[in-house]
């Protein structure tokens, strides 16, 4: 109560002759001067939660007076003046001084009292509890009522010490800390939160009061009456309030002579403990100590600062055995003991302060009709239980069992009415076979303590000190670590517990297994068939391929030999070489097909998207196939008039491949003088305004057609309607499979209509993104670009790259801002308003935060709050995987390094609107 001590209020005690207690129903509003003072009076501001000794006292007084408080906040000084001026009615915590009693009213009784203590430096061994050691020392004290008390104390103990007074606590403490004074006179234990201070002794006490303004004699009367009534009805109120807010901290006191004597004469502490008593104590399966005791002893030794003391444990099966071992000198302390003080004395032991204060539970059969239990099952190895029961149920009949489990079993089977169990041990009842038991908490708790032989005062005090240092919650908290060992939940327990779920579940599982078995046998048949078909197809393919490969290879080998034989004949050689070349080309295309197919099947194909002008793509195709068409004197009709958007964004090579595969088949399977037509039309998608159209390619011929059966499998791998031997037409049987796979990768469809002998029509529908940009006049488009007024954030750690991009973009009118890594980029984005930046170019690898993470954070921040800002990765990593990662991070696209300035500008054109 540091603040209160500053108060030295002098007052005359009022003679209150008559107390008139008028119990009115009207609430009296009372103005309370409420100042902040740690522990004593907290929460001195509007709306703050009020706590503290004084607050509880105010509340209690209100219960007797009916007062309704109006709190006035301020410093103590301010409030004290207000009390003198009559502006407030009450103020708490004032000490009594006779010479000021005429300006403030004191009630008859104090609201509390406090002890004054002498505190020394813990390092100072010259001063002991022997008062003569105080002679010649300097004692610092606050200039207050305490001075008188101290002087009286010193005189009565015949001590001549120098008293030095201080005007406030700060100065006093400073002077103690700097060792200008040897001893500190303080309120309470005075040493709390001072590591190097030890309380030497108490030298007096003082009362403090709830004081009333002189103007309010009515309140004073009510207060006096209330205090009298409070004392009559709740005599322990003040002491329990004091215990709650100002517990004695024994820890700060110096070791007593007995403690010191014990420490100096012992190098080891031998601890005996009771087995099978978790969470308190037990022996684990390796024979080592287990439970709370295992942690408690080292903790106490450490906290007492006597680390030189070693310790050992010895477990005992029964309580009596354990106590006897101590009395016989085998161990010096035992744990736990309990059951009441009387039996401790009978056993010749001291009980320490409670290590754990816990309830005792009465355990009985849930549906038992017994109201007054008569027979108790007692664990014969646990005398604590016996003591407790005969103490509290003197008339009961006791039946012994060798363990708590057997006691519980006796209750379950109805052999006895009940048993008891320690509150921290009741997890044992979670075991399944005790589910029929109920518990009821008994009124009298049974503490678990250390047991020490009577006379061993030093150890008792040390252990008490240790228990206080650790605090009352320590064991409680620790016990949960061990109490789970008290029950074992097996799988069969689980099944038994959940029968109502388990039985239907098991039935369901069996049913599912049956269904799966039946289905599986069907499936496996289907799968087997499919595998067989695939296998057969592969075999056929390999046969065909061997043939197809052997044919050009034979040609190559044969013509090479012929060429060697005719080395002189230039014309001949030239002819052979051109034949070799044709065969090689064919072989190459075969190999390419196989590779393409395997790439598609393994999913490792990647698209290179560029802007393509469809008309010119088809013109190019026409140029490629025209020689073949001409060779067979076929007619090729191309119609591109129904294309609206010429420019699409897609993978040019793959589109070529699709169309070429179908077209060359058409040429291959159409006779001389036949007609082949390719028409392209565009169907804009209405719902997709952002440049997305479906393009339809129709390739029609009047060739040999395809049988209805083969139409069904034409797009499967390794299929050919006729082998090349039969048809005279070479092929791999992969062309259409590749085509179909590619079309599907583009998100499109391919269908075929054909009548044998009349011709075929292939219809390919693919959605493409359309582009407003022309491909042909790139240069002029780029030069036309103007991004004046657009602000772009470049996120890039390398200065050279920053400058390059800045220069290019500035040339097109962009405003540029630069962030040197991801964290800067994110904060720049966040601190500027939405729309401040029009686009972000983001490097990927950067120190602090990479581009992926920066993008993720921007997207997260943006979500729901801001409009989508385009973010483009700018990196030398241009693998598909990197592009995928960029997409996943929330980026809109990818611009490769080295920078293609045209591509960069075009990307901006498409994304800056």
């Amino acid at each position, binding site marked *: 109560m540091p603040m209160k001590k500053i108060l030295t209020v002098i007052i005359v005690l009022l003679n209150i002759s008559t107390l008139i207690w008028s119990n009115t129903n009207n609430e009296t509003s009372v103005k309370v001067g409420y100042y902040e003072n740690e522990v004593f009076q907290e929460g001195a501001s509007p709306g703050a939660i009020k706590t503290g000794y004084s607050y509880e006292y105010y509340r209690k007084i209100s219960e007797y007076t009916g007062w309704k408080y109006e709190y006035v906040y301020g410093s103590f000084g301010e409030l004290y003046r207000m009390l003198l001026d009559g502006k407030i009615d009450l103020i708490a915590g004032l000490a009594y001084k006779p010479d000021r009693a005429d300006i403030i009213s004191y009630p008859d009784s104090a609201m509390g009292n406090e002890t004054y203590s002498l505190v020394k430096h813990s390092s100072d061994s010259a001063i002991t509890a022997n008062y003569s050691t105080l002679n010649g020392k300097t004692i610092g004290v606050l200039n207050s009522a305490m001075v008188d008390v101290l002087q009286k104390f010193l005189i009565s103990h015949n001590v001549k010490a120098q008293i030095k007074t201080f005007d406030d606590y700060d100065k006093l403490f400073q002077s103690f800390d700097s060792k200008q004074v040897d001893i500190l006179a303080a309120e309470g234990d005075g040493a709390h939160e001072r590591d190097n201070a030890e309380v030497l002794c108490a030298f007096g006490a003082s009362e403090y009061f709830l004081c009333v303004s002189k103007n309010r004699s009515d309140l004073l009367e009510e207060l006096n009456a209330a205090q009298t009534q409070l004392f009559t009805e709740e005599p322990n109120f003040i002491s329990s309030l004091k215990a709650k807010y100002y517990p004695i901290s024994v820890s700060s006191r110096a070791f007593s002579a007995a403690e010191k004597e014990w420490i100096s004469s012992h190098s080891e502490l031998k601890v005996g403990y009771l087995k099978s008593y978790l969470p308190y104590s037990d022996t684990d399966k390796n024979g080592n100590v287990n439970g709370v005791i295992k942690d408690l002893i080292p903790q106490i030794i450490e906290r007492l600062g006597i680390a030189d003391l070693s310790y050992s444990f010895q477990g005992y099966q029964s309580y009596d055995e354990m106590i006897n071992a101590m009395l016989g000198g085998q161990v010096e302390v035992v744990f736990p003991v309990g059951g009441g003080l009387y039996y401790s004395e009978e056993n010749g032991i001291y009980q320490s302060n409670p290590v754990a204060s816990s309830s005792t539970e009465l355990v009985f059969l849930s549906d038992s009709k017994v109201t007054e239990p008569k027979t108790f099952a007692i664990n014969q190895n646990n005398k604590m239980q016996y003591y407790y029961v005969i103490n509290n149920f003197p008339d009961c009949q006791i039946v012994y069992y060798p363990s708590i489990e057997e006691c519980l079993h006796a209750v379950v089977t109805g052999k006895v009415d009940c048993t008891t169990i320690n509150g921290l041990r009741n997890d044992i009842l979670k075991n399944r076979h005790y589910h029929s038991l109920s518990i009821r908490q008994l009124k009298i708790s049974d503490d678990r303590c250390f047991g020490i032989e009577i006379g061993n005062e030093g150890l008792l005090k040390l252990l008490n000190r240790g228990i206080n240092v650790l605090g009352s919650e320590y064991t409680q908290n620790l016990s949960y670590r061990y109490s789970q060992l008290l029950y074992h939940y097996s799988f069969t327990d689980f099944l038994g517990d959940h029968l109502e779920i388990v039985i239907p579940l098991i039935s369901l599982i069996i049913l599912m297994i049956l269904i799966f078995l039946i289905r599986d046998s069907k499936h496996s048949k289907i799968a087997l068939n499919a595998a067989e078909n695939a296998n057969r197809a592969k075999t056929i393919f390999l046969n065909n391929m061997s043939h197809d490969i052997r044919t050009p290879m034979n040609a190559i080998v044969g013509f090479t030999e012929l060429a060697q034989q005719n080395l002189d004949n230039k014309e001949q050689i030239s002819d052979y070489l051109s034949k070799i070349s044709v065969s090689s080309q064919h072989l190459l295309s075969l190999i390419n097909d196989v590779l393409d197919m395997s790439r598609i099947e393994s999913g490792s194909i990647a698209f290179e998207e560029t802007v393509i002008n469809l008309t010119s793509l088809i013109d190019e195709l026409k140029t490629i196939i025209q020689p073949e068409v001409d060779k067979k004197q076929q007619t090729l009709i191309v119609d591109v008039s129904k294309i609206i958007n010429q420019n699409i964004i897609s993978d040019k090579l793959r589109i070529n491949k699709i169309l070429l595969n179908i077209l060359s088949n058409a040429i291959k399977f159409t006779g001389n003088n036949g007609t082949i037509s390719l028409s392209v039309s565009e169907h804009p998608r209405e719902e997709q305004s952002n440049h997305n159209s479906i393009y339809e390619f129709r390739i029609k011929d009047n060739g040999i057609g395809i049988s209805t059966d083969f139409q069904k499998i034409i797009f499967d791998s390794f299929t050919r309607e006729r082998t090349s031997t039969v048809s005279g037409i070479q092929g791999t049987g992969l062309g259409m499979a590749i085509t179909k796979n590619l079309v599907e990768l583009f998100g499109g469809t391919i269908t075929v209509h054909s009548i044998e002998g009349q011709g075929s029509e292939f219809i390919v529908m693919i959605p493409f993104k359309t582009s407003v940009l022309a491909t042909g006049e790139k240069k002029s488009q780029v030069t036309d670009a103007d991004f004046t007024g657009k602000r772009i954030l470049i996120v890039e750690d*390398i200065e050279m*790259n920053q*400058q390059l991009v800045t220069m290019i973009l500035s040339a097109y009118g962009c405003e540029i801002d630069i962030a040197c890594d991801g964290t800067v980029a994110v904060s720049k984005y966040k601190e500027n308003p939405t729309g401040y930046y029009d686009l972000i170019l983001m490097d990927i690898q950067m120190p602090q935060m990479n581009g992926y993470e920066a993008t993720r954070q921007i997207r997260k921040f943006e979500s729901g709050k801001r409009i989508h800002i385009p973010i483009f990765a700018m990196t*030398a990593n241009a693998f598909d995987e990197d592009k995928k990662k960029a997409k996943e991070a929330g980026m809109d696209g990818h611009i490769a*390094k*080295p920078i293609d300035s045209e591509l960069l500008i075009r990307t901006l054109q498409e994304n800056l609107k």
Partner: protein
Amino acid sequence: MITIEGLKALGVDVETGLARCLDKEEFYLKLIDMGIKDSHFEQLGKTLENKDYTEAFEQSHALKGVAGNLALGELYDLICQLTELLRNKTETDYAPLYNQIIEMRNKIKDM
């Protein structure tokens, strides 16, 4: 002094580089000067020495971007090789390749 002619003689793809800089010669030369003095070259050496291939990859990759943007031809190719080896954390003696890179870089720097 770094000049266009000197760069051409060292096999730098000056045309591409210049085009990237919108044909601003002075600016291009300034960027080359800046890029070639980039500290990532030294950091790459250190990380390779420490066999910290993860970090070395980052360094090498950054330099790949620099050399690529500047169209530094042979230097770019060498850095690409190194980057790919490091991407797969190939256990090999990187000293010769790194020395080649530094040699090439010094040729440009000390022009």
